[in-house]
């Protein structure tokens, strides 16, 4: 198999693996939040353990990368962490102020936000086609329907 094909297959496996993990963790998080901690505290503990586990498992990669990492890349990655935490925090604030039946479908639209931002900021890196945009809209609509009905 060509390296490019292999990367694409690996990319799809990773994306579906990530979706399955996020799907399962929703159920685990419900258990933790219902029985043990407020949501933000649960997230804080979870992220600390995640950092320790990843640091332990990939210490060689991390150490190697630190020797060649550019300041710009470092800033972008740190911002990715900040915006992820921003998302989680506002998700919980929204839940504190209203029903999940409103919050879940709206927050499920994040792939569309990514599409718009890709179009604006990643024009030179990534090609957006009509097919990808339409496919994303269908996926988001499907998720919004499921999220609305589940709650």
């Amino acid at each position, binding site marked *: 198999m060509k390296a490019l094909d292999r990367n694409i297959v690996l990319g799809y496996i990773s994306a579906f693996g990530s979706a399955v993990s996020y799907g399962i963790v929703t159920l685990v998080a419900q258990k933790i939040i219902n029985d043990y901690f407020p949501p933000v505290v649960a997230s804080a503990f979870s992220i600390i353990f995640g950092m320790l586990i990843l640091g332990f498992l990939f210490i060689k990669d991390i150490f190697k990368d630190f020797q060649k990492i550019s300041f710009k890349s470092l800033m972008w990655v740190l911002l*990715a962490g900040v915006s*992820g935490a921003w998302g989680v925090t506002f998700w919980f604030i929204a839940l504190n102020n209203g029903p999940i039946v409103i919050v879940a479908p709206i927050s499920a639209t994040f792939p569309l936000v990514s599409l718009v931002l890709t179009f604006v900021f990643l024009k030179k890196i990534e090609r957006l086609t009509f097919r990808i945009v339409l496919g994303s809209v269908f996926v988001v609509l499907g998720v919004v329907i499921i999220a609305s009905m589940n709650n």
Partner: protein
Amino acid sequence: MIVVVFALLASVGFGTSAIFIKLGLNSMKSTTGTFLSLVSGSLILITISLIFYSKELVIANKTVFSWLILSALLNFLGGRYLNYTSVNLLGVARATTIIGTAPLFATVLAITIGNETLTLPVLLGTLMIIFGLLMVISEK
């Protein structure tokens, strides 16, 4: 109305994260990118927890500890690390669209393992997701 604004801000946060990571993974592996994003994210969540929930920052027993480890493994090793890997390999648009289907997997689990039943809207939503995914995946 305010709840809509907060939910939209959450969506913007999740959506923006993929753009930042795509820009950041130029000079590092996704393992390092995931680790560094956890460092900056944890600083924010720990600060919020210390300000608003300082009395609840105690892990009472081994059971709680086990649940938190499981949550961390699924959320950050399975979820975020694979998320960033796929954004790096497939691009933001395809990767976030696939990752956005996570509620479908939660629903499938709730139906197969839990006591929830398959309703017509859930079936309709599932078909729309599959159709959308086929469009995204079949694009060369």
